[in-house]
């Protein structure tokens, strides 16, 4: 590995132009330092609305994987999707955009769903079978395809908050989907950055990143026939991981067949390596995909970003959009690779 990359550097994300301070002047942080910040999360398993038998505690289900059939909102499911009981946005009504003096507002229209990833309260994505994760990914895809039909929705965001520090309020393994009436700012920035690169080079920046990572070979965390998992060159967080499909596609919901199986495999492997390297840290993951109606774009490439939440984001990051990452991604890769994965 090039020693140059282990020195404190300012690294610029080539897509959105965000800068990251990577590496430390005194000593780069290894898992030893990072683990001190990882809060233990022990599950109590009490009064869980997502456990089998408690189906009545959630709003009526939207879909479920029931291999033996059976009635909705009863046990016997493997993956279950329900509306969020306390939605950030409501599904009924119109946007009704309006102004108050110089301010703009609209009604909070949108969908907010919860994907319950397994009936087993005490397991996690890093532990459950690849087959089970495939069912989860299939549920994501199915919900996207359905929500895309609603003309009010411009963007579908799928994400997971794991652990209290990362914003999870319930213990039971779950992810969430929010359908938004506008394309959010961060997404627009990312699209703009990718578009600018494409204008200049006539190539997809994510495809170029894949090429460079396969050539450098110092940030590859895992790979299989259809996907590559890397510690991104401009990691904002220690042990950040991105999963990219080799096949250029801008829309996650078009994933098919082998790709679903391979994504399940690499997602599990990445989360497992992360869990082992850092004593089960809290994390968020987000599926970055093109806005509704913008599929087949040449310049955008869907992917998943996994962001371990070990160090608190403080005033400087808020004010500047600069991030401070004490573990260079090349170092994180070494530790992630060292984890034994069968």
């Amino acid at each position: 590995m090039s020693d140059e990359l282990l020195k404190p550097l300012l690294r610029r994300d080539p897509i959105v132009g965000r800068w990251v301070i990577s590496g430390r002047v005194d000593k780069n942080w290894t898992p030893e330092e990072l683990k001190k910040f990882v809060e233990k999360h022990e599950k109590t398993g009490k009064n869980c609305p997502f456990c089998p038998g408690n189906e009545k505690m959630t709003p009526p289900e939207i879909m479920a994987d029931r291999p033996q059939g059976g009635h909705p909102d009863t046990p016997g499911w493997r993956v279950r999707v329900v509306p969020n009981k306390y939605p950030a946005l409501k599904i009924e009504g119109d946007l009704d955009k309006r102004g108050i003096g110089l301010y703009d507002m609209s009604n909070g229209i949108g969908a907010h769903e919860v994907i319950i990833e397994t009936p087993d309260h005490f397991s996690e994505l890093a532990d459950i079978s690849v087959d089970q994760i495939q069912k989860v990914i299939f549920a994501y895809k199915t919900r996207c395809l359905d929500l895309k039909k609603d003309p009010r929705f411009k963007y579908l965001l799928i994400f997971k908050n794991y652990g209290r520090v990362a914003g999870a309020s319930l213990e039971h393994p779950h992810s969430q989907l929010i359908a938004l009436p506008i394309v959010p700012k961060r997404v627009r920035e990312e699209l703009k950055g990718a578009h600018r690169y494409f204008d200049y080079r006539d190539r997809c920046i994510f495809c170029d990143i894949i090429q460079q990572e396969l050539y450098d070979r110092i940030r590859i965390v895992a790979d299989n026939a259809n996907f590559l998992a890397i510690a991104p060159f401009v990691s904002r967080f220690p042990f950040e991981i991105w999963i990219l499909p080799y096949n250029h596609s801008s829309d996650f919901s078009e994933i098919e067949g082998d790709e679903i199986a391979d994504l399940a495999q690499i997602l599990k492997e990445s989360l497992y390596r992360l869990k082992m390297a850092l004593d089960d840290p809290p994390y968020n993951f987000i599926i970055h995909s093109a806005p509704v109606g913008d599929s087949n774009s040449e310049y955008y490439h869907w992917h998943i970003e996994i962001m371990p939440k070990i160090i608190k984001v403080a005033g400087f990051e808020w004010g500047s959009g600069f991030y401070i990452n004490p573990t260079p991604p090349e170092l994180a890769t070494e530790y992630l690779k060292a984890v034994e994965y069968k």
Partner: protein
Amino acid sequence: MPELRRDPIIGRWVIIATERAKRPHDFSKTAESAVDNPEECPFCEGHEHMTPPEIFAFRDDKTSPDSPGWKVRVVPSIAPLLRVEGDLGRRGWGVYDIMNATGAHEVIIESPQHITHFGKLSQEQIRLVLKTYVQRIDDLQNDPRIKYVMIYKNYGKEAGGGHLLHTKSFLIATPITPKRVKEELQGARIYYGYKDRCIFCDIIRQEQEMGERLILENDFFVAISPFASRFPCEVWILPKNHNCDFYKITEKELTSLAEILKEIMNRLETGLNDPPFNFIIHTAPFRKKVKPGYWKTLEWDYHWHIEIMPRLTRVAGFEWGSGFYINPLPPEEATKFLKEGVNNE
């Protein structure tokens, strides 16, 4: 019905989740407190040898640097994120860009006594702290490598406050204008281009007129709950006199700012049971060696101010992915609460 509100300056959207509106008291449970031992505190008077040599201090006559007798003291960070030495060395790495981590990272020690909350400082002491900020920015603007100076506070564990509880703020000087700052400047410039007025001046006028988000005002400042507050009980303090550079603040304004800042800090502390918070001074970048036409109207279109963000809700996957925030407390409610703060005591 939950609302989507758009920050008029940088275009960030916030979900005001009225449906699950919470009372400010619901958040205070998560506020965390801790203790610390002054004997081991490197920022207490008499422990000057425990920090790197001081950069600046307000101190009594005939006292020497790195000895007792100071009121506010500035030292380099013991583990700086950016180093003062060396050049930028901008270069590429395949598709990526890198440069050396050059800049400054300083700690402003706000009191010689072991006080842990900013609001507990006297108004005069807060004025000296603010004056120290001004001095440091004024000094750093002489360094041609530095484009921006950011001054901020992290208070409490959830807000990224470290293990040292002694009241302090930080200064980071960067060789580029940070992205968020640029976005804010751009938003202000677009509005100015359209209306020929400063958006912040317009916000102050509208808030004074409407009143429902105006928390406090004194001679030179207003404190408001911003229309698109990202966090419950977020507060912005804006100078009534238009100026883009914080460090050009007048002596009278300094006194007035110390007064309003102390009052707001105390109301947040008592009202929310000592919440963790971040505060950031938003000010214009240095404007030397500019490209022609660059920042041409900045002095008219930008308006420095302070943003105080209590950190009682957690920023999770959704906010990260979208840049949307979910705020369960409408700012109008927060204003009522922060206004009543005094009467409750």
